[in-house]
């Protein structure tokens, strides 16, 4: 029995179902929790692909930091439910049609043009668990050192931007 394939199919179904849950849930908190579950399943997929560092970064950065930020803002604003106002009647079917077209184009490119139906063989020595993290660190701090440093500037700019956007203006009363 091909256990990895069964595991992959189960995880893929879980990822797609949680994405559907994100789309259809009325309450924003449920949507955020579905998205956290989706990030978790994708993290397990990264582990199966032999990327343990990325899997753990996914759990800490996405499922940890980003989702906590989302939930914090949802609860801060009390914006978990929107009143059901007027909706453009043609918007939903049109959007579903456009998404199906997007999916069809992606499928056409992947399966017809590229013919990428090859199987991923078992990872070599460079993708072994500890070795992979070591190699990743070496590459990150030698070949990609400058982009890594620029990343810190990006995070600083984002931090300053968030503070400037939310601080009170002079003379404004709360």
């Amino acid at each position: 029995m091909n256990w990895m394939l069964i595991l992959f199919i189960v995880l893929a179904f879980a990822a797609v179902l949680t994405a559907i849950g994100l789309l259809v849930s009325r309450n924003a908190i449920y949507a955020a929790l579905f998205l956290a579950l989706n990030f978790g399943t994708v993290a397990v997929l990264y582990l199966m692909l032999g990327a343990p560092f990325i899997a753990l970064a996914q759990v800490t950065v996405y499922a940890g930091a980003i989702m906590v930020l989302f939930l914090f803002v949802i609860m801060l604003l009390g914006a978990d439910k929107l009143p059901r106002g007027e909706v453009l009647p043609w918007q939903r079917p049109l959007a579903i049609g456009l998404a199906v077209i997007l999916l069809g184009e992606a499928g056409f490119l992947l399966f017809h043009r590229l013919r990428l139906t090859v199987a991923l063989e078992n990872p070599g020595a460079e993708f072994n668990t500890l070795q992979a993290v070591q190699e990743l660190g070496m590459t990150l701090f030698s070949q990609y050192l400058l982009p890594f440093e620029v990343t810190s500037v990006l995070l600083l700019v984002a931090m300053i931007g968030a503070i400037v956007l939310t601080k009170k203006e002079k003379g404004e009363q709360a």
Partner: protein
Amino acid sequence: MENLGTIPLSGYLALSAILFAMGALGVLIRRNALIIFMSVELMLNSANLVFVAFSRYYKLLSGQIFVFFVMTVAAAEVAVGLALIVAIFKSKHSIDVDQMSSLKG
């Protein structure tokens, strides 16, 4: 360990395409700005999955490093985007994107 079996690359690519299309659908049909934001995160995440799958396929680590940078950009984007949503909520008392139809608050 040799008997673990293999998964075709196309499986990962198909899953990623489905997740990306659902993220795009979420951006189109939802009106809650926070859920639109979450759908954008879903699309970024599906792109990351393709990066890691191709990194495994070509046996190059650069794909995984690029995922690392995409995660950084996503974190920065969420910080600024949520600050924007909070600022809009302060002036409009709603995060319905239909309400954000005027340029001047």
